[in-house]
């Protein structure tokens, strides 16, 4: 029997970029072991964390994700020898950039989850979901998408006057 699902006002959308060799297998293990974890997570499978371009994270936020998780093999366990080492540096830099731009880093999580760590996958996903749920929806990027260019609006008295004179 499934435990009674708790109702929440806000169900965050979490996008998880995972590597096929470790975290995807880990998530699979969590599933086959009948472990419960929030259904908010959408898993996207990649060959390796090294394949995950920072622009994917950006795109996820723009398309309405409230939180993003990037997860792959533990250092030293990469199927492609060093993909996760490269990813580690890239994401260390990227999160600093996002932080500087003004994105709350609480919405962005990174983890190493091996194929044997179904329990850790559950824990990582639950933590991020609850954290993002507490933070509320990610509105910044969505608001941007709805906005028009400032130059499209007449926002100075001089311009308004010139416009009225036409």
């Amino acid at each position, binding site marked *: 029997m499934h435990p009674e699902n708790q109702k929440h006002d806000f169900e965050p959308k979490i996008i998880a970029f995972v590597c096929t060799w470790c975290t995807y297998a880990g998530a699979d293990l969590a599933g086959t072991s009948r472990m419960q974890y929030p259904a908010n997570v959408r898993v996207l499978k990649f060959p390796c964390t090294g394949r995950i371009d920072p622009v994917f994270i950006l795109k996820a936020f723009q398309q309405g994700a409230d939180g993003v998780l990037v997860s792959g093999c533990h250092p030293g366990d990469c199927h492609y020898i060093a993909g996760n080492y490269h990813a580690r540096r890239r994401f260390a830099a990227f999160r600093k950039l996002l932080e500087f731009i003004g994105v709350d880093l609480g919405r962005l999580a990174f983890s190493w989850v091996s194929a044997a760590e179904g329990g850790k996958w559950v824990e990582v996903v639950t933590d991020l979901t609850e954290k993002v749920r507490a933070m509320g929806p990610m509105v910044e990027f969505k608001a941007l998408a709805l*906005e028009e260019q400032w130059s499209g609006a007449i926002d100075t008295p001089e311009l308004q006057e010139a416009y009225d004179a036409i």
Partner: protein
Amino acid sequence: MPLTSQPIDTSIYTTITAAIRSEASRLFTAGEVVAIIGYAAARRVGSAQPIIITNAADAEKLIFTHACVNNLAVYLTKAKKEIPKTGKIGVVVKGCDLKALVGLMGESQLKREDLYLIGIPCNGVLGSTVQPATALTTESIASKCCDCNSHLPTGCDFVPNVALPPGLQMESRYSVEIARLEALTPAERWAYWKEQFAKCIKCYACRQVCPFCFCEQCLCDRNKPQMVDTTPRPAGNTAWHIVRAMHLAGRCAGCAECERVCPMDIPLNLLNRKMAKELKELYDYEAGFEVNDKGPLTMFTEKDDQSFIK
């Protein structure tokens, strides 16, 4: 900002101009180079523009003044394929420009043996050439020159023999601004950048002028998949500037050309300097005069910081 602006000594630039003219003339006469990329006087008083000369008679056109702001390295990336076919190309470089060239060599875009580097001992250039006849002062100087650590380029084939006047101590405008932004809350920073990026008209001047934006097809021009919205609207602008900063992280040489050419005055180099600062802290990497095959984001060590990974 200092309360009173102090003049900066640019008297050495006259000597430098004479030296690069005679060197250019010698190079063409000796047949060592087929072309020299340098600066020449432009039409407005005091202004300068890039020029490519191909014979000794034109050597007299070359100048160096505090209005010689352009990073000439950009002409080499766009024309790089022609270099081996025609011969050596001479290029006039300031310290910051040389860092860009060195970066390009590290990325196998240029070969050192195809170039004849004419280094300039530089005491700073103007921040804006809107008024090219402005005297160089601690106020009119480019922000990148305030914390310049490469007044004298090293490893060049020719450097005019002049003594650099003692540099004035100037406040690093970028560090001050970065510190100010870092002290804000994420929401305040977002509001700041939203306002800045909203100004963007997607003219891509920053991409065009950047020596490191040499991809034949930019990710941002691709539409299968379309990762970055191409219209000049806030969403696409923000994405473009984030992608641009990320692609330059660990590569940017700090010539600040992006910021200079931006018609909407978006502080682009601020993002680049922030990334440079972070990479210095994380991986002890700084753009310099030594050619490195690998940048900080194309290499790794097993002991890299992973405190942010669960």
